Structure formats: C-alpha cells, structure tokens
C-alpha cells in the first residue's frame, strides 16, 4: 500500500476531493497546514511593525491506496490541483506496511 500526501492550495481542495472520489478513492484525511517554499509570501503591518509572512495557507490531503491505483490517484490529483502557478504544492509517496479498519479490525488493502 502507498501513502499519498498531497500539499495543495486550499482553494483546490474540493476539486481534488471530488476528482478522487470519482475514480473510486473514497477514503482520505485532510489537514490544515502552512507552507514554505518558492512561492513568496507577503508583508503584514500591525501598528507599523512589519511582519514578513512566508508561511502560506495550504491543505494537506493524505490517503493510503493500493499500489495498483496509486499512479492513477496521483494523476488525478495533479490535474485537479494544478493552476500552473508557483505554490501549487507537492505530492509525496511513501510505503505503508499495514492498514487497519478500527471498526472491524479488517487489515490490509480491504481496510482502505
């Protein structure tokens, strides 16, 4: 099983989610995040004090999928999340050794 972590623009979350559901990837977990990277931040002023904010709002979508559909899922995310501008985000893939459904102790790909 593969764990796919996609860091995307918050505004793209719905698109990505729907696209994944479409191809049958039901299960996913979403986390609010802040990102730092090439995309340049902005400056904020409070009472004249300058704050250069280089942590930008991002959303992290995590899903564990069977190896065979991993690539399909990745492609789906890429198309759904892409705006073509700096800051679109990243996808990271790692191996997962075990998955368990808490409700009924099912293990392995069936648990996804």
């Amino acid at each position, binding site marked *: 099983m593969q764990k796919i972590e996609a860091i995307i623009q918050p*505004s793209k979350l719905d698109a990505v989610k729907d696209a994944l559901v479409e191809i049958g990837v039901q299960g996913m977990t979403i986390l609010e995040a*802040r990102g730092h990277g090439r995309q340049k931040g*902005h*400056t*904020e*002023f*409070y009472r004249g004090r300058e704050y250069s*904010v280089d942590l930008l*709002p991002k959303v992290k979508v995590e899903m564990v999928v069977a190896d065979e559909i991993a690539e399909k899922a990745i492609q789906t995310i890429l198309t759904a999340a892409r705006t073509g501008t700096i800051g679109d985000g990243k996808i990271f893939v790692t191996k997962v050794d075990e998955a368990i459904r808490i409700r009924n102790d099912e293990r392995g790909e069936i648990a996804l």
Partner: protein
Amino acid sequence: MRSLLGKVLLGLLIGVVAGCPPMIGIKAQAQTPAMMFVAPDVENSQRSAEADRIAALEKQVAAQTAAIATAQTSGDNAWMLTSAALVLLMTGPGLALFYGGLVRKKNVLGMMMQSFAMMAVITLLWAIVTYSLAFGSGNAFIGGLHNMFLHGVGLDPSPYAPTIPLQTFMVYQLMFAIITPALITGAFAERMKFSAMLVFMVLWAIVVYSPMAHMVWGVGGLLNSSTGRFPCIDFAGGTVVHVTSGVSALITALYLGKRIGYPKEAMQPHSVVLSFIGACLLWVGWFGFNAGSALSAGTLATSAFVATHFGAAAAAIGWSMAEWIRNGKPSCLGAISGAVAGLVAITPASGFVSPMAAITIGLIAGAFCFFMVVKVKSWFGYDDSLDAFGVHGAGGTIGALLTGLFARSAINPVFGKGVATGVLEGNYHQILNQAMGVAIAWGLSSVGTLAILFVVDKTIGLRVSEAEEMEGLDLSQHGEEGYEWAH
C-alpha cells in the same frame, strides 16, 4: 463640568417661590436670588397688595415657562443622544459583525473595514456638504449649500425638531447617512477594491442619499409627508435608507459580477457566531433608529419602539417557519436574517402602526425576504453576496407599501387629527403616494449607482485582481489577517 452655572441660573428661576420649599435641594442656590427678585417689588409698596402678588406671579410664571422648556429639552435630548449612539452601534460593531461573519475568513477585516470607513468618511463628508444637501433649505429635490461646513448648524432647536438642539438632529441624521452606504457593502463583498469602494461611497452619498433624504424628510421635499407634493409616509427611512441601499446593492452586484468560484465553490459564512452578535446589536440599535425618529421621548417614540420590537420578532418567526418547512430545519442564520428583514420592513411603518399590525408586517416581511433570498436570487443567479438587496431592497419596498396599508391616524395624525391615513382607514390614495416614493427611490438608486459605478470603473477600476481576490481582501487590501493562526 461648567453646565453648573447654567443649572444654577435655572435654580434661581425655579427658586423664586415664596411659600413653598423647593424640592430636590435646589434650595441652596435658590434662596438668595429669590431675594434679589423680590427686593425691587418691596420698594414701590404703594401699589395694591393684589397687584404686587400678580406681578410676582407673572414673573414666576414667565420664569417657569423657560424652565419647562429646558426640562422638556433635557428629556427629549436625553433620548435623542441615546438614539444617536444606538444607531452608530448598528454600523459599528453591529453591521460590521453581521456582514463580517458571513464572509470567508480571509475577507473578514476587509468586510468590517468597509463599515468602519463609512463611520469615518461619511462623517467628514456630512460636515462638509452632505448635511447641507440633505437638510439645508433648497428645492423639492435637494437642499442647498448654505449649511456647508455645518455653517449655521447650532445648538438652538429648529423646525425639524423644536425641542432639541439642531446639532442633535444633525448628528442623529448623520448616523443614518453612515449606515445606509454600509448596507450596500454586503452586495459586493469579497471582491471590491478598498480605494474604489471609498470613491464610490462618497459619490453615492452625494448623488443618491442626499437627494432622497431631502425629498422625504427635507423642508419642502417632494415626498415630505406634511408638505410634499406626494406625501409619502416613511417614519424612519424605509425608502431613504433601505430601498436606496438595497437597490444600489443589486446594481453593484450585477455590475461587478460574481465572485470567483461562485456559485460552484462552497462559500459558507466563516462565523455565524459573529453574525449572531451583529444581528442582536442591530436589533437593539434599531430602537434608536426607529423610536429615535420621533425626535422626542414622548408617546410616539414608545409606539415606534413597540412596533419595531414586534415586527422584528414576527419576521424572525416568519423566516424560520418558511425555512423549517423548506429545509426541515430552522437555522440560526435564518432566524437572525429574518429579524433583520423585519426590522427593515417595520422601519417606515413604525410610528404609524399598532403592535398587532407590526406583527402582521413582520410575518409577511420574514417570509417574503426568505423567498427573495432563497428562490429569486438563485433564479436570476446574481451574486448579491450577503443579500443586501434580498433583505434591504425587498424588505424596504414591501415595508413602505404595507405602511400605506396599515398607517393609522390615531397613532400618528400625520395628515391631521382623525384624517384617514392608511388604506385600511379608507385613504386608498395613500398606496399610490407610497408607490411613488418607492418608485423614485428605485429610479434614483439604480440610475445614480449605475452612473457612479461606470465612472469609478473607467477611472480607478472597481474590482481587485484575481490573485488578490484569491488571497483575500484582508491581505491584499489591508495587509492584515483577521485571526493569527499560531501561538
């Protein structure tokens, strides 16, 4: 602190009473002067005792007349200053929160800032010219420039309100001039340039608000209920405030177009809690808005106060019921939206209708505005983001018409004691006057707003860039964030 002297003088006048020990301790100040007054009389004691006593009485009565006028002013002015404060409370924080909670987190400050900007900018503009344009003497359509820079706007009472200082009237009316444009901001939420918003509002206050206020409330105004060509009854601004702002809102929404992603993307309110606080403050502040429009603290103020409260409550129920039936659940946002709709609709009627009539108006307005916001808006598909038109335009219009229906001379003999006022009293003609007032408000608002939008658009541009809109107004327009995510 110096008001002491003034009051002491009053003490003297009151004190001039031989036999009776003056109440509430004015005594101290009173005795001595009493002498001073009596003294002279004593000299020419050849005059008959009766004559003396009469003369003394005449002096006292004369003195009392002044004292009574002062007391009357204190009572009325106390209420009017309170009302002015309450109406400001409606804009900040009331409306700012109501609207601020309905937008997405990234636009909360931008939204609130627009209301706050009105509190600052419209105030200066009022001092410079708009007060004069609205309430200065002019023609049937607009006031003159004699009162620019508040020239001649002093502390004596005026025909507008014979028992309170003119400046009280001026500042009270200013609070109306502030909230009206602020109401419009709900229509173009989350996408207008702050600078453009400022220019737009300044022009709007001059071109749309001032004439409308003059026509309805100004001396010699076309729609003035007592002297106008078409006596349109509008107690607290159903046409002047709500129809104008609501209709202008619709125009701006149409002109600016939809927000990016609307309606596909989800754009839920980021905090109904903030909106709830705002709605409650609007309700409370509205007592100053409507009951204050009596410009005194007598029975008329009470009548308007009561109508306001019952209208708001009924509309909250009207909207919630409609929602409960349609969606299966009554929502908190629905209830507060209904209350606001009711407050809008009762605005022109308060001070003219009975409590039960207010309830009727409220129920109708609540259901009607729900229909406008939920059905009509989606039919036409315009992005009146926070429903400024659906609530204020629609509510104001229906309210103005229903006022012509329910107005009762017993409560407010605007056309003279016992003269039929509303349709239900047999004055069928009044519905036309009301319609005329509404029509003029619609016409002036749409034409004026459209013209202004065009000018501003062609000069500095109305809308923020796409990137700025995505980033949110807080950062792009003001370089701030509403909430600090960490620590």
